[in-house]
């Protein structure tokens, strides 16, 4: 009896702790976001840093995004074709794949990839700068390390992700078209015949809006964990890890929240 009681009370305690930790963590992230908007309009605007971040984030993930997009589109063509095999699907493969890519797969998978590549890199870079007192060096010179490092990264990621997601979308459709016409023997003109009837600009717009927010949250989390690194060595690896895990989870949670909004305002 006593054991059972202990087990439950310690479990409840654990849950309570995690909940409090989670909530205070959320509070700190929100505070971090406020700091971003505080520093955003402040001079000097770090254009050079922004450009180098745009290049870094865009370039780093370009190849892997294209590759993932191609294979996702190819797999989707198969799944759609054989999933709907009971009805005549030749004309449906194109639109179904295009819609799934545009609204969910391109933004979400691009988000997960960028969280893994760039979110982690941000945490690692800023974290190691903190450990080696480079952040202090900036502050001693009278430069805000937040403005210098976080602001350009957050802007760059928010701008890059819609672009990367668009590339994912495009390459995915090309991949699907090739599998559809070459492996599944769908006629090329039939593949495209229903696209205009099923797919609208709004659908692509929904995906772009989502990916903008994904880029924002991934970079907020990446830079947040970088600044949070404690002096001492082991912290950087942990921060990098946390940036990936929480970056990915935030993309999925935010996807649900954004979808439920967008479906209401822009239609399903």
């Amino acid at each position, binding site marked *: 009896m006593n054991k059972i009681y202990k087990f439950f009370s310690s479990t409840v305690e654990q849950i309570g702790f995690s909940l409090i930790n989670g909530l205070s963590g959320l509070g700190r992230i929100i505070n971090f976001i406020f700091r971003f908007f505080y520093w955003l309009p402040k001079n000097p605007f770090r254009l050079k840093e922004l450009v180098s971040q745009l290049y870094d984030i865009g370039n780093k993930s370009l190849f892997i995004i294209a590759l993932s997009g191609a294979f996702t589109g190819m797999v989707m063509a198969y799944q759609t074709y054989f999933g709907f095999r009971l009805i005549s699907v030749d004309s449906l493969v194109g639109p179904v794949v295009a819609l799934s890519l545009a609204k969910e797969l391109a933004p979400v998978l691009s988000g997960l990839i960028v969280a893994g590549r760039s979110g982690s890199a941000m945490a690692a870079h800023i974290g190691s700068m903190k450990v080696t007192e480079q952040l202090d*060096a900036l502050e001693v*010179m*009278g430069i*805000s390390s937040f403005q210098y490092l976080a602001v350009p990264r957050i802007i760059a990621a928010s701008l890059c992700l819609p672009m990367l997601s668009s590339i994912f979308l495009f390459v995915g459709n090309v991949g699907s078209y090739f599998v559809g016409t070459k492996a599944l023997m769908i006629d090329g003109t039939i593949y495209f015949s229903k696209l205009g009837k099923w797919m609208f600009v709004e659908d692509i717009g929904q995906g772009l809006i989502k990916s903008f927010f994904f880029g924002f949250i991934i970079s907020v989390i990446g830079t947040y964990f970088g600044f949070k690194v404690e002096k001492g060595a082991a912290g950087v690896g942990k921060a990098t890890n946390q940036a990936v895990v929480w970056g990915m989870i935030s993309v999925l949670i935010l996807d649900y929240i954004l979808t439920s909004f967008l479906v209401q305002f822009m239609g399903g």
Partner: protein
Amino acid sequence: MDYFEEEKAVDIKGLTTILGGQTILNNLSFGIPKNKITTILGFSGAGKSTLLKHILGLLKPTYGSVFVLGKNLNDLSEFELKKFRRHFGMLFQYAALFDSLSAYENVAFPLNEFTDLSEDEVEEKVYGLLESVGIKVDSFFKLPSELSGGMRKRVGLARALALGPDIMLYDEPTTGLDPITTKMVNDLILNTYRKNVDRGMTSIIISHDVKVTLEISDFVAFLDHGKIVEFLPVKDFVNSQNKLVQEFLAL
């Protein structure tokens, strides 16, 4: 401890710092003479780094005030403080060079940030600074990771001197260095001091390396448990009657 006649670069009055419920600096008062080398000694955890942060205005006093070059830091806004920090140069323990920038770019960084010098003028200045700390031209465009620890310190010093600081701060400049590099850093500090003595530059060293301190300092302050327990010209410091100081000197 106000018996020095010297003009003060930094004047600390009744400084108390409470962080996380812990009193770290305790009603601390002392003045650091201008145009001299003053070392602040103390055991680990005595509050040296905290004191340094106050001098830089990176921390706000819980009570008391810090005057730097006659200005009460409490009276400055966040923005004014940022600007005011250009009076300082700081050499960090591990140099804290920006690791994505070359030696040259590290030294050029403050010049590009805070002056309107043309590219040519910046180049001339950076070359002069790097040469004056003993870096050879073939190392100018190396990244910090390609430089030895001693060279990194030289570059860090050149960067700190770029804007002609009025107060030069050294954080544990010789801690963890081999004897030869220690000697080199020592000479570097002395040379820097001599070259800038006409400008009236003040040097402040934070250290727990007694031997080095005695070799180059004009004044020594001993910090313990958030208080300055001894503050003397270096020649009197070795004869201090304070128990802790004697203990420290015997190490």
